[in-house]
């Protein structure tokens, strides 16, 4: 990352499913594909395991964006329909986030398979650029109430 403190470096929390997207990220790593260090990955067993509470907590603790990634729909999910649950929560969260003052663009859903290391690289690079343009999250870290 840049040492110049005036450059905004977003923090993007990425929830990746164990079976497809995390393995895809792993492939990107072993293939030495470069992607921005702004993305902090958290491995979950399934995108359907991503409780909306995780997303709200990430925002409350100062994440500038949240990426959820799972297996391709309709038939790749290791648990058959976990990715559909993620898809439904994603749209409902997108509708609600602006009511809390958070731009819906700060939440993103992707389907990345275990073979798509290049797609993972692409999504991370492109999303980091997008959030850099959007600017820091309006949530002031540590200032919860008052």
């Amino acid at each position: 990352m840049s040492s110049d403190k005036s450059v905004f470096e977003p923090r993007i929390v990425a929830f990746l499913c164990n079976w497809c997207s995390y393995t895809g990220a792993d492939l990107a790593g072993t293939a030495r594909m470069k992607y921005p260090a702004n993305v902090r990955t958290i491995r979950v067993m399934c995108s359907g395991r991503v409780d909306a509470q995780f997303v709200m907590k990430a925002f409350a603790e100062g994440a500038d964006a949240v990426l959820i990634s799972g297996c391709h729909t309709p038939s790749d999910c290791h648990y058959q329909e976990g990715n559909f649950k993620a898809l439904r929560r994603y749209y409902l969260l997108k509708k609600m986030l602006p009511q809390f003052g958070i731009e819906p663009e700060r939440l993103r859903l992707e389907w990345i398979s275990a073979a798509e290391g290049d797609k993972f690289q692409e999504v991370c690079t492109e999303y980091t650029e997008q959030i850099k343009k959007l600017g820091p999250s309006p949530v002031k870290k540590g200032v919860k109430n008052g």
Partner: protein
Amino acid sequence: MAKPKIAFYWCASCGGCEEAVVDLAEDILKVVEAVDIVFWPCALDLKRTDVEAMEDGSIAVTFINGAINSDELEEMVHILRKKSQLIVAFGSCSHLGGIPGLANLTDKASILKSVYLTGPTNVNQSKTIPLAKSPSPDGELHLPELKENALALDQVIDVDYYIPGCSVPKKLILDAVTAILTGNLPPKGSVLAPTRTNCDTCERNKTKPEKLTITKFYRPYEIELDEEKCFLAQGVICMGPVTRGGCDERCIKGNMPCRGCFGPVDNVYDQGAKFISALASLFDAKTDEEVQAIVDTIQDPAGTFYRFSVAKSMLGHKVSKE
């Protein structure tokens, strides 16, 4: 032996929690027999100075209802904390921020503007907005100042126990008073209500289909509500799956879905987000378009899922760039 002293105080609330105490009817006599009520602005003419004159820690327990949304209320609860051995947050507003907490989804300036200037039933030709300090011929006048956000009681002072509900059911009040008087209390910080969700005891749970799927949401006035069928199975948003039980399903028995006033169960930190997880799972949709079409039938998700708990949600209030 002297009777234990108890106090009641109201903050930003509708008065329903005071009503709940009065609704104890004859049972209130048992309470009055066992305790000495030393402060209760709703019923006894005592002032802040009377409380200030009391010895620190001299009140055994103070029940406080309502959210904290002005500097005056904040000062008052700090005084009561000092004078009381136990503080019990009484009702949804002091437990979770409650209905006044919905104000956190907008901002103070918009609230004042809407209430005093643009409200359709308002005539305010001089465009007066109350000020915390204003000059007068007799010196400066002071009014309580509205806070930027409404807070739950434990966001202002240390709280020992919580009794949930909008308003608090009679049984929970009597159980809590008995527990306090007999010293039979759970660990500090407990919510004095069951730990299971409302669905767990709901009669209508039996009518819930094996696989519950929803294709469209209705607001209660939009359809004829079946008196026995699970609300979610009818496409009506019911907060039962994520809401603490113990209310005796008063709303559901009145053929209205649960609105979530008892707050989340233990180990859930954000009632609204948890409900998103639960509710979205039930959508009968597998493509972006299908999901979006169902989401479009949900009005005001934040106000519905966090109806009583905006202040205690993870974000706590609407955030702004300023």
